[in-house]
């Protein structure tokens, strides 16, 4: 263990425990938090996973990478201020901008204090603070970081894109054909989701988390349910857990197939796109036959699952996966054997392992760059402990590596689904939720990476505070790094190889 990490860990553990489950949250004083920020600046061992707020209080979630321990820390925002973590952890930058926009709390010494989600259209500022202030000012012009140099010009793309994708703005600074800097401006899909959840029961709020990012509806619903169950000290029945894993793996399969195909398409190689599309469609239809919804939305609920596997569902899933399992090796061979494709994907959009580690980026983006974190293994959660999930890791960090990780995961998920269907336990689908206070954390490995949810319930069991952290928070900034010094024409391909969520981070 690095001595500095021990120092930072020790500073958190010296705080007052607040009884969050299963990971403790420690309340620090603003002075202790400032000391923590300093300790983090010299320490590499403690990764920042999330940063969020409640009125007058800021919370952070950390992962001690070597120890595999997750812990939370909080700092009261006296007079609406708290010491920034962004000088020590670059991943904190967007969280701090978001906290200022939603709760009106200011990070002192922050790396970047420009607005993030608040584009000036809401009619209020600090909508989640105790006293949102009316805002009648005209929306300000967005400011972008400047790039100096001869012949530098800008290309502005979005928020409405040429393809059928979510809204966001990309500002390229370009020198000739080469991208000198990309800056992503998001927030266009902001729906005020956290505000809608406050004061509702976990059961009633689950529908918002099923719609945080539609492609990850199962993973986010599960992480949210896990947080609620941890807060209330209930354990869902074994059958519910197995069905959740079944749905989560189907979700991983359909998304990996989709993006593999699209990445080939963006390399002007349409055949794998067509085939992946057909295989994915079969998986979605099987999911609909098994769970009554193609994306399996609203099927995972706090306490368990909303419905059982339909009769014939298992057969439909197995049939769809058999076709996919037979064809994936063939498609992989095609992917590998075409020089025109290899030319586009190998060495394109490369990331440095050190940068990925600094951002603690998870999912296939981390695993394609040597960071092997997978929440199914660590911290691990039921029912995965018995399934021995294989986690592929590659060092290259380019578009090709990200695609290959996803192909390997695809095959592993097919194996997991088959195993889950074989050993599906009998029994109840859900347990009732008591109405009482509690605080919980849930972490579930979605197809993009770990979905990390925090939830606090008041005495009546209603939501006092919540924060769903999509994995894309720590991945979007890396897209900006990956495209640097690549040509503009490779951006769609790089972007697809990341496929970050807009809605998931726009909240």
């Amino acid at each position: 263990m690095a001595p500095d990490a021990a120092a930072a860990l020790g500073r958190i553990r010296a705080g007052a425990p607040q009884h969050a489950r299963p990971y403790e949250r420690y309340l620090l004083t603003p002075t202790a938090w400032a000391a923590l920020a300093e300790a983090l600046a010299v320490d590499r061992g403690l990764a920042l996973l999330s940063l969020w707020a409640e009125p007058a209080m800021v919370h952070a979630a950390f992962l001690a990478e070597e120890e595999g321990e997750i812990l939370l820390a909080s700092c009261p925002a006296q007079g609406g201020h708290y010491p920034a973590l962004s000088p020590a952890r670059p991943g904190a930058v967007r969280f701090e901008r978001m906290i200022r926009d939603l709760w009106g709390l200011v990070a002192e010494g922050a790396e970047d204090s420009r607005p993030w989600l608040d584009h000036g259209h809401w009619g209020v500022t600090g909508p989640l603070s105790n006293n949102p202030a009316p805002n009648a000012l005209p929306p300000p012009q967005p400011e972008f970081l400047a790039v100096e140099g001869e012949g530098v010009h800008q290309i502005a793309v979005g928020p409405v894109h040429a393809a059928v994708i979510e809204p966001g703005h990309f500002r390229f600074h370009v020198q000739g054909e080469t991208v000198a800097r990309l800056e992503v401006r998001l927030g266009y899909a902001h729906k005020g989701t956290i505000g809608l959840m406050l004061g509702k029961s976990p059961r009633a709020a689950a529908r918002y988390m099923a719609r945080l990012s539609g492609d990850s509806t199962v993973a986010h619903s599960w992480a949210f349910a896990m947080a609620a169950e941890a807060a209330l000290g209930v354990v869902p029945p074994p059958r519910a857990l197995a069905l959740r894993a079944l749905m989560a793996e189907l979700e991983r399969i359909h998304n990996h197939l989709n993006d593999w195909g699209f990445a080939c398409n963006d390399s002007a190689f349409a055949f794998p796109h067509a085939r992946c599309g057909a295989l994915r469609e079969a998986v979605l239809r099987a999911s609909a036959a098994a769970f009554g919804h193609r994306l399996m939305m609203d099927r995972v609920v706090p306490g368990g699952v909303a419905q059982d596997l339909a009769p014939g569902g298992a057969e439909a899933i197995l049939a769809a996966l058999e076709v996919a399992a037979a064809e994936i090796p063939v498609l992989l061979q095609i992917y590998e054997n075409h020089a025109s494709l290899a030319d586009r994907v190998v060495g394109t959009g490369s990331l440095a392992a050190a940068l990925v580690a600094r951002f603690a980026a998870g999912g296939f983006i981390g695993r394609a760059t040597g960071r092997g974190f997978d929440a199914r293994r660590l911290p691990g959660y039921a029912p995965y402990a018995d399934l021995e999930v294989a986690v592929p890791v590659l060092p290259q960090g380019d578009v090709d590596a990200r695609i290959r990780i996803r192909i390997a995961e695809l095959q592993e998920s097919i194996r997991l689904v088959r195993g889950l269907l074989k050993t599906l336990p009998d029994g109840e689908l859900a347990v009732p939720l008591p109405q009482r206070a509690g605080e919980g954390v849930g972490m579930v490995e979605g197809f993009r990476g770990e979905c990390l949810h925090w939830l606090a319930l008041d005495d009546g069991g209603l939501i006092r505070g919540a924060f769903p952290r999509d994995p894309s928070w720590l991945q979007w900034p890396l897209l900006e790094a990956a495209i640097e010094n690549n040509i503009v024409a490779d951006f769609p391909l790089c972007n697809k190889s990341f496929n970050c969520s807009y809605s998931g981070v726009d909240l």
Partner: protein
Amino acid sequence: MLWPRLAKNLFGRPLTDPAPPVPDQVVQALVERLEAAAQQRLGHSLSIREVDTGSCNGCELEINALSNVVHDLERFGLRFVASPRHADVLLVTGPLGRNMRAALERVWECTPDPKWVVAVGDCAVDGGVFKGSYAVEGGIAEALPVDLVIPGCPPTPTQLLEGLLALLEAQALPRATPFWRRDED
């Protein structure tokens, strides 16, 4: 190898689904709307520009699935275009987010007349679950005249196709039965 596979597929059964039934009432309602507006008919095909005003991306997944080989949208003369300037139809998803209203209005202004607006998904119909948020104005009709709504969360590709075919029939010039209706004769 790719080529033997392609050859095999040439002699195989097509993957494409048959067209879904198109509801006559919807076509009729659209025709009336068209006539009331004295709108010019567009002909046999429609170019579609998709605009997401704050969806959860579930609707985008299903709209993209329309282009896969199983649904093969283009066989009906429906296709997605990259710019609103080339579009006949704006297919709008998501609740009307306050952060997207200005962009949506600009897209509308850039789209040449005559044009249709289709609100896709429960969110686009009336804000869906996001109704009442400080960041959401409601459905797409708060900003634009909506011609057709396709509810669902998200609507399935089949439901999307039904709606789009109804639009195609309503605005087509009087002519022979479209190919997807020939079996009904």
